[in-house]
């Protein structure tokens, strides 16, 4: 069932309703999320090179503000692993370079990212994230996971490495390997125990907060055994207090100096990174909230969500927070724990704040190796092996984008890695769409077309090419020369079916014009069919419509291939006309080829005869069925026959229509609905057709000449002339078109056998 976001209504009734229905669920859900979120937040701060307490600040303030201004009922905003890795990559070297405090630089970065996100949301430009493909996100996340795991090795091993570039995998690995002999076995033990607990506890009971239990367990173990004491000397394990003691206070409001007194060169240096952080944060928030909304049925407002994310980071920068985004694990937990409204995320922030206030002294003794153990397991889960395998098998293009992004993440600064991934996916997209598929259409004997690979159809005076795909500038190059490949010495006409073309621009028009010019030089006519409105406008504007000629342009219809069939009629008429002209020029053959035609040679033997004792209703139905089942646009009349089978009359569609509408006054019919018209028409249904039909129909003899057929057709307003035997029984029918066809053969306007209808 679809839900709409439950707004925080100031009205008393709204608050009372919330207190009654949702408060308990949100409060408990918030506690559940906080239990998982607290160790996670502290660990993620470590990724960014920050004291763990700043992770808690972010999990409090950024989370609350983003929830209040956002849209999703279940999205929990806060520190995320990928963003923290990017923050580390962006800021690791800056304190030394500018002589500034790392935290101030990070607050400035957070402010900038939040501002960008806020603007994107405000101006409804959030749709930009849809152009970042899934492959890019999977590749980037996997790469970030590898970097996080490698960077946390030092904490698990209890070694001290200093490297300027934490995002450079090779550098970090080499430094780690170099310092392996200095491994602290106690730190290693703590790290391994933590990681093992995080993996094994859910297998025993999925409902248990594994990370919290692991951290608390190893912290208690290490505390009780005194592994954090200075007396351990080289084997002393580092604890949170060593980075920065966590004070049990919420006095976190802080005016970021670098925001208030911006340094241009620093802002410029952080600019690209801030954009990358903003986009990455929005992608995470959008994809996570969308995934949960698919299960919860909530309809999201992504513009509002982006505003919420931006507001969260903007405000957070004034409360000692670093850049945060939607967390998948905490969001999924919020949904599964039965959170009702966005207040669930706010309550998780409240519980986190309470933890900070009352448990801070205990938190200071958490070993860094313990947090690193959690991070290594989280990093492993960031490498989505299933999706990586699926993408590897699904196609070259996805493979290139995903693994290209992954490799970029490992070798480039992270903010450039995501842009590299976006660039790759756009290049691939352009490559894929920058192609126009060409096939040839070969008319089938009965009806319709066979589609054959391009340039594989048998030589024919008329070549029909089906074009599909995008015809913008990238796809157009050399297309005219490609099309020329299907021409042979026999070709008189080329028909281009363009119904399935998209994105037609000026470059395409220039190509088509060039193609038309080449064909004209070769005395080949160009006909185009399936022209949609967009193409029509471009052709008219470019002048190509005038060049090709109105008679050679066939606009798309809702009937499949209708315009192409008409284009072929035009094409073959050109072929036959030119052939006939060639015959005329050669002289002498025409008179020898003139045949004698009569009714018998042009008539069709198919006719529908109808007893004259039926009612109008039956005639209406039969004519309707006849017309529906034939493709012939000519409306063949019903020829009535008496009980002896002799021609007794003719019932045309005009007769039937006239009788159906006899009682409907045209002048007053404007207010009639179609349904009412139908009712009025049925009032004459019982009329006998013998009364309605035309009785003065005289059939012609089989030896009637074409001239006589023409005269009879014209004088009597016939669409079809019946040909009868001496006993007045119908032998066949001749239409004006049949006569015309006979005349065309007689005067060599056609040079091949025409099928009779």
């Amino acid at each position, binding site marked *: 069932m679809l839900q709409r976001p439950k707004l925080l209504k100031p009205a008393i009734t709204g608050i009372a309703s919330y207190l009654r229905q949702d408060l308990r669920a949100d409060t408990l859900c918030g506690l559940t999320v906080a239990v998982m979120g607290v160790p996670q937040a502290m660990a993620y701060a470590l990724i960014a090179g920050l004291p763990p307490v700043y992770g808690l600040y972010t999990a409090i303030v950024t989370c609350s503000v983003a929830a209040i201004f956002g849209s999703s009922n279940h999205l929990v905003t806060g520190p995320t692993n990928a963003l923290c890795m990017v923050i580390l990559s962006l800021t690791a070297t800056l304190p030394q370079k500018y002589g500034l405090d790392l935290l101030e630089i990070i607050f400035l970065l957070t402010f900038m990212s939040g501002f960008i996100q806020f603007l994107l949301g405000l101006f409804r430009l959030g749709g930009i994230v849809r152009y970042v493909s899934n492959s890019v996100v999977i590749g980037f996340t996997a790469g970030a996971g590898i970097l996080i795991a490698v960077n946390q090795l030092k904490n698990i091993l209890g070694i001290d490495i200093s490297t300027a570039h934490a995002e450079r995998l090779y550098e970090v690995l080499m430094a780690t390997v170099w310092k392996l002999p200095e491994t602290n076995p106690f730190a290693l033990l703590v790290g391994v125990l933590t990681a093992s607990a995080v993996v094994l506890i859910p297998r025993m009971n999925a409902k248990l907060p594994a990370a919290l239990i692991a951290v608390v367990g190893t912290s208690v173990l290490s505390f009780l055994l005194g592994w954090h004491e200075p007396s351990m000397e080289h084997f002393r394990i580092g604890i949170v207090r060593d980075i920065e003691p966590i004070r049990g206070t919420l006095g976190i409001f802080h005016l970021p100096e670098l925001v208030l007194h911006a340094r241009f060169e620093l802002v410029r240096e952080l600019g690209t990174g801030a954009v990358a952080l903003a986009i990455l944060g929005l992608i995470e928030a959008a994809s996570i909230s969308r995934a949960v909304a698919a299960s919860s049925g909530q309809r999201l407002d992504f513009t509002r969500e982006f505003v919420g994310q931006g507001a969260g980071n903007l405000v957070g920068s004034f409360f000692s927070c670093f850049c945060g985004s939607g967390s998948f694990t905490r969001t999924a937990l919020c949904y599964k724990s039965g959170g009702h409204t966005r207040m669930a995320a706010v309550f998780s922030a409240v519980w986190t704040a309470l933890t900070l206030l009352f448990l801070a002294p205990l938190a200071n003794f958490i070993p860094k190796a313990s947090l690193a153990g959690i991070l290594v397991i989280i990093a492993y889960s960031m490498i989505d092996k299933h999706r990586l395998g699926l993408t590897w098998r699904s196609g070259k293009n996805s493979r290139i984008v995903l693994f290209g992004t992954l490799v970029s993440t490992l070798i480039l600064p992270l903010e450039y890695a995501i842009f590299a991934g976006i660039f790759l996916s756009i290049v691939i997209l352009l490559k894929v769409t920058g192609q126009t598929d060409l096939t040839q259409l070969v008319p089938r004997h009965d009806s319709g077309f066979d589609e054959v690979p391009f340039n594989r159809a048998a030589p024919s005076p008329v070549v029909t090419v089906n074009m599909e795909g995008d015809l913008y500038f990238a796809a157009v190059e050399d297309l005219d020369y490609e099309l020329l490949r299907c021409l042979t010495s026999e070709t008189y006409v080329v028909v281009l079916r363009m119904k399935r073309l998209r994105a037609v621009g000026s470059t395409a028009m220039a190509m088509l014009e060039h193609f038309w010019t080449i064909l004209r030089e070769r005395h080949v006519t160009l006909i185009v069919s399936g022209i949609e409105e967009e193409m029509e406008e471009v052709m008219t504007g470019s002048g190509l419509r005038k060049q090709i000629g109105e008679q050679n342009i066939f606009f798309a219809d809702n*009937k499949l291939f209708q315009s192409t069939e008409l284009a072929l009629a035009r094409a073959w008429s050109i072929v036959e006309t030119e052939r006939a002209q060639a015959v005329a020029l050669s002289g002498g053959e025409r008179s020898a080829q003139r045949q004698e035609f009569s009714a018998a040679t042009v008539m069709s033997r198919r006719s529908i005869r109808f007893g004259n004792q039926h009612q109008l209703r039956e005639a209406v*139905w039969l004519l*309707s069925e006849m017309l529906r089942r034939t493709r012939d646009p000519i409306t063949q009349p019903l020829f009535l026959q008496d009980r002896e089978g002799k021609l007794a009359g003719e019932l045309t*569609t*005009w007769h039937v229509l006239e009788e159906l509408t006899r009682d409907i006054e045209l002048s007053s019919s404007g207010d009639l609905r179609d349904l009412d018209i*139908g009712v009025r028409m049925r009032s004459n249904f019982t009329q006998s057709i013998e009364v309605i039909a035309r009785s003065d129909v005289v059939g012609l003899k089989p030896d009637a000449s074409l001239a006589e057929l023409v005269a009879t057709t014209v004088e009597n307003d016939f669409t079809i002339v019946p040909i009868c035997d001496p006993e007045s029984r119908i032998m066949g029918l001749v239409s*004006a078109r049949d006569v015309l066809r006979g*005349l*065309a053969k007689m005067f060599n306007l056609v040079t091949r056998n025409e099928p009779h209808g």
Partner: protein
Amino acid sequence: MAETSITAESIMEASFLKIPGDRPLREAVSMLIHLPQGAEAPLMLVVLDPDQDGNYLGYLTARLLFKSLLDQWSPFLPDRKDGSISEKVFLENFEGRLDSPVSDALTPNLPSVRRDVRILNMIQLVVSSKLEVLPVIEDGVICGVVTLKSIYLAAAGLALTSETQGIRLPE
């Protein structure tokens, strides 16, 4: 939901054969009878003004072509009194006209309709003038054609119900 009426726009065909009026008649004849195997030949051919692109001049069907030619060849008209028809004159005249412009063979002042014309008006036009086609014109430009067949099928669709279909065989 608003009830929609059957109008010319709802039953017209947007795709049709066309030819500039200055092309020879032989070309028009060739177009009227040609179609790939298995399909039916087109019913009509729209004739456009060669000097003003896209402007409608008229249309031709085989029937209208003969009517127009006979109107112009009064000496040819069959002499019913003695039953003879001047076949030779007919063929000579027809052959002689093959190189003249298509526009010369048009029947003038044939009815046309706008997009919003309703079914009853279309029925009245085709019945009174014994037409097989109604061109749909907008600002002098033809935007579609309505055939007698589509008019009939639309009318039959209104008239017939599930109870009124079928034929009762004679007892």
